[in-house]
């Protein structure tokens, strides 16, 4: 049953409650002196120029794409790793083929310079 998740659910609720409580304590003990300039976003002491959120480099996006693909492939390994010892040679070759295809993509990514930052 889902009873295995009961301690996790309880710990989840408790951890959030604890964190909220501590942050709340801070708002009790802390002073509240509102000054306009204090609430300005920090920008090395200058008045901030332009909005705080702006477009980011496309490189971050490419890293995320690479990550998703590798992540999904790696997640397939886990149930295989649990059982492959009892499954015979076929399962091993099976997985070697899988890793081989992954490595083809990896080599392509490297050769095309997708792994470079600059």
């Amino acid at each position, binding site marked *: 049953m889902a*009873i*295995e*998740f*009961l*301690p*996790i659910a*309880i*710990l989840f609720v*408790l*951890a959030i409650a*604890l*964190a*909220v409580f*501590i*942050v709340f*304590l*801070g708002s009790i*003990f*802390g*002073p*509240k002196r509102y000054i306009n300039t*204090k*609430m*300005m*976003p*920090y*920008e090395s002491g200058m008045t*901030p120029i332009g*909005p*705080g*959120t702006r477009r*980011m480099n496309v490189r*971050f996006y490419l*890293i*995320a794409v*690479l*990550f998703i693909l*590798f*992540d999904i492939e*790696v*997640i397939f*390994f*886990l149930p295989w*790793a*649990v*059982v*492959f*010892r009892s499954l015979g*040679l076929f399962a*091993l070759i099976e*997985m*070697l083929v899988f*890793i081989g295809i992954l*490595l083809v993509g*990896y080599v392509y990514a*490297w050769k095309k310079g997708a*792994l*470079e*930052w*600059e």
Partner: protein
Amino acid sequence: MSDPINLIANWLQGLLLGLGLSVGLTKIILSFVGAVVVATIGMLTVIFLIWLERKIAGRIQDRLGPNRAGPYGLLQPFADVIKILTKEYTTPDGADVVVYNIAPIMAVASVLLIWAVIPFASTVVGTNLNVGVLYIMAVGAFGLLSILMAGLSSNNKFALLGAFRSVAQLISYEIPMVVSLLMPVIFARSMGLVDIVEAQMPWFIILSPLAALIFIIASMAEVNRAPFDLMEAESEIVAGFHIEYSGMKFGMFYVGEFLHVFTVGALVATLFLGGWRGPWAEQYPILGLIYFYIKTFVGYFIVAWVRLTVPRIRIDQMLDFNWKFLTPLSLVLLIITAVLDRVLVLVNSERWVYSLVMFLANILIIWATVEVLKKTTSKPKRKEFPMRPVAMAPETSTSTEPSS
């Protein structure tokens, strides 16, 4: 008498059942008590860790470290807590207030959640999940989210850049981390952390030292510690994603980071150093708890030690190191481990032969890697500058021209 923790739990259970509560409710209350204990121990450990790390940092950097508040500065973290509690919360103009306030709470909660699956002793474990290893990764996703939320809601360029750098780093290093986690799973034939600990007849660090090494390095990147602390590169982006947080909201991120490092120590101990295993740990679970804590501190110390020794790396170095070194290395290790395991099980080798071959294979991979690196990496060209005098003594020199 051999197992005081379960003794207390059983006593409590008997008491609650005696009060006429149902079995289900008793289980819920017991889990609740357990969760309270885990959360409290976690928080108290962090307070101790902050002192410990500052003391270690002081010693490594040839300083004394905190030594004013209390004996050996032991009360320093409490002074810090009082100070940070009496600080004002500032919310930047234009911040996304709700998201901004949820982020620090999630940062702590996401780390505390990992503790639900770690076996502290042979009888003390929150829950024995059959997908324990994956659960750890899943909880990490929430930590990732808290960073992104903090960075995007702060209305600050530095926070945004810090969050993006840090998320790019976290997701990159997750891949070698999962692959290195596969080695214990292969050896133990289970994803449950309880089973992994029970399967460690020789510790898994002996069976696969390279996997342990990759795991520690990747974890160091996961906790955003130096040398992987680009997200808070003070000289570039001030403080990274938590730049706009003050008071206890910043404290939450700080506590979360320390707790995460300690959790990494606990994971290293659980996955590679045998968890609660040790002499007489089976008979006296309380002894197992002590072993587990000692091993965890060893893991923690390694992370702290590296943090204090190595300088920060650049973002391109960070990505190169992961994608061009750790990822292929961990995949090679996975292939070799799987093939060897298959062969060794096929010839039905003894336990010690299995361990020896695995260990030697790992050493061989490390040696081969070092050799390949020696061959392929181009050494940075050092330009030789001739020595030039900064100032000349006027009468000793015959020529006024410096000898170029």
